[in-house]
């Protein structure tokens, strides 16, 4: 055991070593913090996308209450926010847009706005379906869901 303490250096007496060690520790710590933030962002984005998909599926299911053959453009346009809001649990706001692509024309929007400005992160989902339109015609309708 060393009894001569004159040769023992204090913690701050070897500054280059201290700086190198601090640089290494900072590198690992900052990278860990950045990675955690990235994964949190990715998880949040996945959640928003899943909510948008749930909104689109719910819109089609609620409108085709009796089965796929009973889906009409009228029943899609009759959807209200109360019919869909349970599928957007956890979202600040959401919107569903129903647009008749063929024959081109009508468009209907259902939304629940939770913010004044559009946020940077959005979940998006879109689906094409066939729906009965004006009698016996089969139309092509695009149902789009956005959640934030």
């Amino acid at each position, binding site marked *: 055991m060393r009894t001569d303490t004159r040769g023992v250096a204090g913690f701050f007496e070897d500054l280059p070593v201290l700086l190198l060690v601090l640089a290494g520790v900072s590198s690992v710590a900052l990278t860990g913090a950045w990675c955690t933030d990235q994964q949190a962002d990715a998880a949040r984005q996945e959640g928003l996308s899943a909510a948008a998909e749930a909104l689109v599926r719910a819109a089609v299911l609620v409108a085709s209450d009796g089965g796929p053959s009973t889906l009409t453009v009228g029943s899609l346009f009759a959807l209200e926010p109360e019919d869909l809001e349970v599928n957007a649990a956890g979202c600040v706001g959401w919107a569903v847009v129903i647009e008749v692509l063929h024959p081109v024309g009508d468009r209907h929007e259902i939304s629940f706005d939770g913010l004044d400005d559009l946020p940077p992160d959005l979940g998006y989902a879109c689906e094409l379906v066939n729906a009965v339109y004006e009698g016996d015609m*089969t139309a*092509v309708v695009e149902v789009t869901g956005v959640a934030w």
Partner: protein
Amino acid sequence: MRGEGAVSGQLALMDALVFLAVAILVSSAMMGHVGDPAGDALSFSDAMPHPTVDILTVLMRASLGVQMTVDLGRELALPADTSFAECLLLEARAMLGGADEAAFGAFEARLLDVLDSLLGPSLRGHIHVSVSEDVEPPLVCIEHSPVESLQVSAASQRLSDDGVRTTAILLVEPALGLEPLRV
């Protein structure tokens, strides 16, 4: 002693350098594991707004929307609620029977208009109809111009199995002049 202290100081510096190098390697490995999702390259099919098979399915079930007539020697009326699948099958059978494709010009124009509205301005679609196993050359080609891009997404749907197996094929490519979709 001075000599011993100098040797200890040099060893400590080397240890610190090794520690820094290992720390940088660990940081790089962590960043590589998390990755950058925005840099992942998607295939052309992945970047389309809707899967090609979905577009073909809804298109085939959709109705004409307007009444049309086809001149096959005798005028044949197609009601507005006739599906595009039924019309394509009718055209394929007429062509097998020797009819002129020009007789279906109005129907083909209508089909292309609807397909354009489903795909949007950045994509271009082609409808081919083939019989039996002979995919090339197709019996019916409904398109603005032949396929030009190497990036093509395709889907097929059987229109009929009775007697002659008839298949509709949808080919989707980037519209002329646009770069291939890449993220």
